[in-house]
């Protein structure tokens, strides 16, 4: 089992290289440090780590061969689809990085069966454009179009269709396991025997294995295809942007909307963040440090504390009915219709809300916010009864810490309001010293700890912490470690991240 960063002797390096070249050719195997350094990780809170090789497979068959080579030589494999932000893309233990962007075929768009099948290199923008030809759309977050669809969907993606009970957009997957087995989930599993069986169903007669790979960070297998859910472009897509003076009211409103089937999605944006977005959208490039220094509780003028964005679609008559009901709930919860005022006063934010959440189109707007700092965003899925208290405490806690720059948040209502996603958005300055970065990491960890202990929240997008978080899950963690060991006994699959997620108990008798 791989337990630490591997070292390769020059001889072994040459042998592995020769094996990789025999599968991919010279042009798609790289071991020059000038190439490797670009795949050494992104997230400022975790150390950079150089891989030994970067390879660019173009098909499932090539991935299988690479996995076999890695397994034969006992070398870690780190899959990267887009490689933004996630610590899971740091090849902590070295080895081979698989850059999957070259696997960029949209294999199927099936308007009848309502799904598309894509490879990991397919970008959100490319799929959105292809779907538009069929009057379909996919769900998006506030992210740029150049992200990988599967890179995003394999995380807990909190995208533009989450409030009505659709918790993720992966229908089924094709996965290459550590021993080279190619596995398909859902109905497609039966295509082994009956090739005409399509991807139409998320399950089959057996336990669902699709979810096993969501959030797995490449530690259990390499996804080479995914059938993703697509949605109809309806006669009308609309919103009523709503202003609320407090987050507590926003949450109650969001829950009421979702539980009464009035929205596909609803999210709340803290004033500081929609102000930044408006600035970026209106003035283009660059961050806007001048607008992020305000006191997070005190809006500088009559701008609302939160703007809530409920989105709905359907036939015209249906949408009129939904709008009438939403107006009643706005009154009930003490908000006001802010659509026109937002268009007038914050046209950039208005456009952003419409692009992402009404029309499900990615944009680059939010990216601009990063130039003045590196995002250190603690994200939790929270209990709907305590999330407002978490917001209150969280802002105070972060405000008094090193993580005060760009302090704001956005929050999504998930699964009919059973869960509320809350993402604080502080950044640290890129010229922070190592000590400051470590302090920032500690603050983030403390935030997460308290969010769990005091407010009953759970973390998503795991930070490698030597298995500490998993330990807190008892039997769940033990079962998960057994699965990891059964699927990948040598710990080839994202070995460093595996050690970070599953911890040292992965090496012991069975995760106990």
């Amino acid at each position, binding site marked *: 089992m791989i337990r630490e960063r591997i070292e390769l002797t020059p001889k072994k390096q040459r042998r592995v290289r020769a094996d990789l070249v025999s599968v991919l050719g010279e042009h798609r195997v790289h071991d020059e440090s*000038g*190439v490797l*350094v*670009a795949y050494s990780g*992104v997230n400022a809170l975790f150390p950079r780590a150089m891989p030994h090789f970067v390879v660019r497979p173009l098909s499932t068959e090539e991935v299988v061969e690479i996995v076999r080579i890695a397994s034969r030589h006992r070398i870690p494999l780190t899959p990267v689809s887009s490689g933004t932000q996630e610590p899971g893309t740091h090849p902590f233990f070295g080895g081979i990085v698989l850059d999957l962007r070259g696997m960029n075929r949209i294999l199927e768009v099936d308007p009848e069966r309502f799904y598309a099948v894509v490879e990991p290199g397919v970008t959100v923008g490319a799929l959105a454009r292809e779907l538009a030809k069929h009057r379909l759309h996919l769900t998006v977050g506030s992210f740029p179009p150049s992200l990988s669809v599967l890179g995003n969907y394999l995380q807990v993606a909190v995208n533009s269709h989450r409030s009505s009970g659709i918790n993720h957009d992966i229908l089924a997957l094709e996965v290459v396991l550590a021993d080279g087995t190619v596995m398909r989930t859902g109905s497609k599993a039966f295509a082994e025997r009956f090739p005409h069986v399509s991807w139409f169903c998320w399950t089959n007669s057996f336990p669902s294995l699709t979810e096993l790979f969501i959030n797995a960070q490449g530690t259990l297998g390499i996804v080479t295809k995914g059938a993703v859910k697509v949605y109809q472009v309806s006669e009308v897509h609309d919103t009523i942007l709503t202003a609320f003076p407090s987050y507590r009211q926003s949450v109650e409103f969001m829950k009421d909307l979702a539980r009464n089937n009035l929205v596909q999605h609803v999210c709340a944006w803290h004033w500081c963040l929609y102000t930044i977005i408006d600035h970026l959208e209106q003035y283009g490039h660059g961050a806007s440090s001048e607008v992020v220094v305000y006191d997070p509780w005190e809006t500088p003028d009559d701008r609302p504390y939160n703007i809530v964005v409920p989105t709905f679609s359907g036939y015209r008559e249906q949408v009129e009915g939904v709008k009438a009901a939403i107006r009643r709930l706005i009154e009930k919860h003490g908000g006001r219709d802010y659509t026109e005022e937002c268009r007038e006063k914050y046209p950039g934010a208005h456009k952003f809300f419409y692009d992402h959440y009404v029309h499900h189109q990615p944009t680059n707007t939010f990216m*601009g916010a990063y130039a003045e700092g590196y995002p250190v965003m603690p994200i939790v899925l929270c209990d709907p009864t305590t999330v407002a208290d978490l917001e209150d405490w969280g802002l105070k806690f972060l405000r008094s810490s090193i993580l005060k720059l760009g302090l704001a948040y956005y929050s999504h209502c998930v699964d009919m309001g059973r869960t509320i996603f809350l993402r604080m958005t502080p950044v640290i300055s890129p010229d922070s010293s190592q000590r400051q970065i470590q302090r920032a990491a500690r603050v983030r960890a403390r935030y997460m700890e308290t969010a769990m202990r005091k407010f009953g929240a759970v973390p998503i997008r795991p930070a490698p912490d030597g298995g500490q978080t998993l330990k807190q899950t008892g039997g769940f963690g033990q079962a998960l470690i057994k699965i990891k060991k059964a699927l990948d006994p040598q710990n080839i699959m994202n070995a460093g991240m595996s050690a970070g997620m599953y911890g040292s108990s992965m090496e012991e008798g069975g995760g106990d």
Partner: protein
Amino acid sequence: MGIDRSASYAFYLYTCNRCATCFISFNGENINCPGYTYFGLFSHTGGGKLYLAQGVLDKRIKEDTAFGRIVYECMFCGACEAACPSGIEIIPVIKALREEAVERGVVPSKVESVLRKVSENGKNVARQAMLAYRQIQSLASPVDEAEVVVFWGCSAFSGERSALAALRFAQLLSDRRIRWAFLEKEGCCGALPEAMGASQLAHEKKEEHANLLNSLNPPRVVYFSPECYAQALFNQKIEKDVLFYVDYLMEIFDGNPLPGHKGPVSYHDPCALTRGAEVEEGLSSYLESVGVEVKHPQRTGKHTFCCGGGFGGGLVNRNFARAVTLARLEELAATGADTVITACPRCINTLSRHQKGRRFRDMKIMDIVEFFTGG
């Protein structure tokens, strides 16, 4: 000076989120970085260069020859910088990486020999361009009698197509009885050594260039190459009125040139013009202003795509250059127009070179001066 922790770009090296907009443009579909088009690696993109620079600072870059190669496997076209939604200034980082390669003595031999030529002030006149060159020389007026100096730049006579376009421009000036000067010892404006990371040489050349122009009588200098024009615009030592030849053309024609036909035509915006000289509207505005029907390629203006002749990449790897040119020709052909207008000697040479013997051979690639003077 190489990669420098105290430079203004250093702050931004660590803010790149790898969002990929610098190589897969806005719609998430088009690859807008020539380096990525061919190599398919993050290291060869604008964002990748920021990581390369981090690697230099953290001493994680080892094999020097490979480092030298990678930093020149880039067209220096600036598409990455124009696209980056975080507004990161990537070109200064690429320049500094190349300076680093120069300092480490790991510059590819082809780059080295070009730089040697520049430093020796060798005039680069290709055999096929010699006839046009001589004719142009013969059309010029003595410098003391001239109203304008025409600065041709090193790419004007590096191929036949550009030399013919240059000749057409010179003939037009003479037909219109404009007294223009030809500089026998033109020298280098500094753009090329700067892009190649030879900062000391670039500095000297920029100075020499400004001194030369300032020592001449004519108050105006017309640049035939957008690369030199972009360089001159930002060379504060030049005390002359600096003009791009297309603007000068419009002036000569009083805003009303007589194009060869009314279209439809397509066009290739040179990156040195739209990004280097910041003429973001590009060639379509000139063409449309005189009533020509224009078919827009997908990538234009500030987000135009390289012709394949960019500084560095075009020199060190021919396959890379060819792949980029073919991708561009493909895009231009997709507009359906059989005439393509451009305004850069390097672009016209590069695009026409790979046109031959291929399915693009019926495409007419013209300089805008050729089009405005009847095709």
